[in-house]
C-alpha cells in the first residue's frame, strides 16, 4: 500500500516543486485561483468569448478549400487534356475547374452578405475603385498597344482587379479609422 494519494500521478507532480523549496532561486508566486475546498464551488472563471477557429475563420477556410479544389482540378484537367488532345470529351474536362471556381464565387458573395454595414460600404467603395482603376489601366494599355507595345493576355485582367481591390480595401479601411 502506498502513502501517496491514489489520484496523484508521480510523473506529473514532483514531490518537492522547485518554487516551494526555501533554497529555490525561483520566487514563490501566489496563485490567484484559491484552492478548491470540498463542498464549496471554486470561483467562476472570468467570462471569456472562446470561439473556435472554425467559427471565426469559417468563410476563409471554406474559400481556401474551394480555391485548393480549383487548383487541383485545374492541374488535373490540363494534365488530362495534354495526354488526350483529340478526345471527344475534352471540352467537358476543360470546364471542370469552373465548378469549384463557381463555389468560390458563391462563398465570397455569401461572406460579403454576412459582413457588417461598414464593411459592406468599404467593400462597395473598394470594388468601385477596382472597377474604375481596371477600366483606366486596360484602356490606357489598349491605346499603348495601338502605338506599338506588345499584346497582353486577357488573363491579366483578373489579377489586376484583385490587386486594385486589395489596395482599395486598404485605402477605404484607413479612411474610416
Amino acid at each position, binding site marked *: 500500500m502506498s502513502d501517496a494519494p491514489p489520484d496523484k500521478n508521480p510523473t506529473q507532480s514532483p514531490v518537492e516543486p522547485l518554487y516551494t523549496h526555501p533554497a529555490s532561486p525561483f520566487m514563490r508566486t501566489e496563485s490567484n485561483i484559491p484552492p478548491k475546498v470540498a463542498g464549496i464551488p471554486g470561483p467562476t472563471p472570468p467570462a471569456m*468569448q472562446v470561439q473556435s477557429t472554425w467559427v471565426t475563420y469559417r468563410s476563409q477556410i471554406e474559400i481556401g478549400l474551394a480555391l485548393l479544389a480549383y487548383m487541383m482540378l485545374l492541374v488535373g484537367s490540363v494534365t488530362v487534356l495534354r495526354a488526350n488532345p483529340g478526345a471527344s470529351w475534352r471540352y467537358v474536362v476543360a470546364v471542370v475547374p469552373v465548378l469549384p471556381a463557381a463555389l468560390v464565387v458563391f462563398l465570397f458573395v455569401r461572406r460579403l452578405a454576412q459582413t*457588417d*454595414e*461598414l*464593411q459592406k*460600404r468599404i467593400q462597395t467603395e473598394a470594388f468601385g475603385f477596382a472597377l474604375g482603376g481596371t477600366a483606366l489601366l486596360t484602356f490606357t494599355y489598349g491605346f499603348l498597344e495601338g502605338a506599338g507595345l506588345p499584346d497582353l493576355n486577357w488573363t491579366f485582367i483578373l489579377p489586376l482587379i484583385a490587386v486594385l481591390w486589395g489596395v482599395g480595401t486598404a485605402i477605404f*479601411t484607413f*479612411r*474610416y*479609422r
Partner: protein
Amino acid sequence: MKNRLRVLRAELDWSQADLAQRLGVSRQTVNAIETGKYDPSLPLAFSLAQTFKRRIEEIFEADPRQKVGG
C-alpha cells in the same frame, strides 16, 4: 452626425469591443460611428438606442452643416 456614444460607453465602462459585441458589428464600425466618420443605418441606430436604453435623439444629434445623403 454628432453623437454621445463615447460618453455613454464610458458611463458603463464598456470598451468599443464590448459594445461591438453587443451590437453584433465590428469594433471598427463602433469606432467609425464614434468619431463621426460613419453614420449608422436606422436598424443599427435603434439597436444602439436599445442597448443604452435611451432614445435615438439622446444619442445622435444632426449636424446642420452635413449634407443629407453625403
